[in-house]
């Protein structure tokens, strides 16, 4: 699956799509693939304040619990309620329909340190080599 060039990516495998001070956040295809069948998603309510680098929710597969970390600080303006009934969307469309939250960014500059699509692809490729070494 392609990693959209206009998204930004964290080392913890979240993606961010920022437009006009609002960031849409999800987990990457690599992340969903590592997790396996997603069966449960827990997200914050609108109004919740997120702090960059801090856990703001969880995604669970049959086997594992994964924390999701805020790629930037800000206030949640919308959480994807569809995922409660259809958590498997995270497996089928991680970069699109399975967005997790929309955040009003406290400072767009916080996203500057994140990877772009090609840097992220290089990052996970290196991880793959580590694992098979």
């Amino acid at each position: 699956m392609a990693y959209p060039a206009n998204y930004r990516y964290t080392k913890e495998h979240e993606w961010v799509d920022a437009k006009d001070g609002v960031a849409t956040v999800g987990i990457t295809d690599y992340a969903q693939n590592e997790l396996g069948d997603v069966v449960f998603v827990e997200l914050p309510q609108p109004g919740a304040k997120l702090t960059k680098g801090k856990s703001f929710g969880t995604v669970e597969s049959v086997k594992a619990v994964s924390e999701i970390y805020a790629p930037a600080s800000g206030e949640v303006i919308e959480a994807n309620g569809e995922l409660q009934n259809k958590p498997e969307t995270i497996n089928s469309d991680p970069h699109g329909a399975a967005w997790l939250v929309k955040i009003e960014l406290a400072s767009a500059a916080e996203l500057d340190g994140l990877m772009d699509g090609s840097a992220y692809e290089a990052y996970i490729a290196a991880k793959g080599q580590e694992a098979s070494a």
Partner: protein
Amino acid sequence: MDSGISPNITELRKTPLNDLHRRLGARMVNFGGWDMPVEYPATGGLMAEHRTVRNSVGVFDVSHMGDIRIHTGKTPGGALAAVQHLSMNDASKLAIGQAHYSAMLYPEGTFVDDVIVHRLGEDDFLFVINAGTREKDISWVRDNTKSFDCVVEDLSDAYTQLAIQGPRAVDVLQKLTDVTLAPIKNYWFTHGTVCGLPGRMIARTGYTGEDGFEIYVPGDVATSEMVWNAVMDAGKEFAILSCGLGARNTLRLEAKMALYGHEISGEINVWEAGLDRYCKMEKREFVGRAALAKASANGLKRALIGLEMIERGIARDEYKVFDAAGEEVGVVTSGSPSPTLCKNIALAYVPPALAAVGTTLLVEVRSQRVKAQVVATPFYKRPRKAAQGVTN
């Protein structure tokens, strides 16, 4: 995102099928020091693997399991006496070609490990033991059989062990062997030709709560891969899947089969684990018997129960359990979504007063207390066919 499963860092042990799992694109994890497939994403992953075992057939590499043979020393009877001393079930009741579930206990009546004891001959037994406890188990067996006239052999690395599990397992394996499988009852075994290999052990055993077989073939890579591929080919018409330890865990949990380090351990005794029917107090002395007699006179402190989550949340291993009044009362030993029941289920230890079916308890899921209810176990019981044998 931070997956709870740790990557493989140190030197891990590998089964002869390790390369094959990697070629199949399996996701590998460190399981008790072994580099094992947890699921095969390319063919559908854990959920699909679980369902195929319940509905059709799947195959697992369980070569990491250990095998200890205890057989006759100078005079007949020594091996049986040793097994009776080591194992809580009554091996004298086994016919040749029969197996049973049992455990080796510490003098405290707690678990060294659970084992499947196979009676190979009048005075010849095979213990199939857990991977994570292999070294401990073999030392335990050697140390505790010194005063018995028997020979102890660690055959753990000699075999590749495949578990072919599911209602169509019999149809798949039948294509590969000259043995007529249908008459073999549950927990019985025989020897025959499998994939052209003579004298292979074929046991109607498993760890999935489903009908199935475990076969033991020579542990070299070429033979192991040849047998694996033959099983996959024979299973094609039943849409057989290769299955990993992830599905093995959810399958055994639904069937309430104990996992060492979770439901049973060196801290938990036989009565607490609810394994009474495999513990034969009426036979003469065995390690742990005296402590168990005392424990049953003193009454139980905790009991293993099944839980079903009522509110939204998944109970996981080691999550705390609270009573309705908010008092901490116990701990989850295994918890997971149940792919068969589409519910979130768990096994937990709580005081016996809270063990009644219908009791409401709370499980702490990341600082939130989520409602759960005690339910009857096993969570899943396979439909019985008239032609099939019954458990022990």
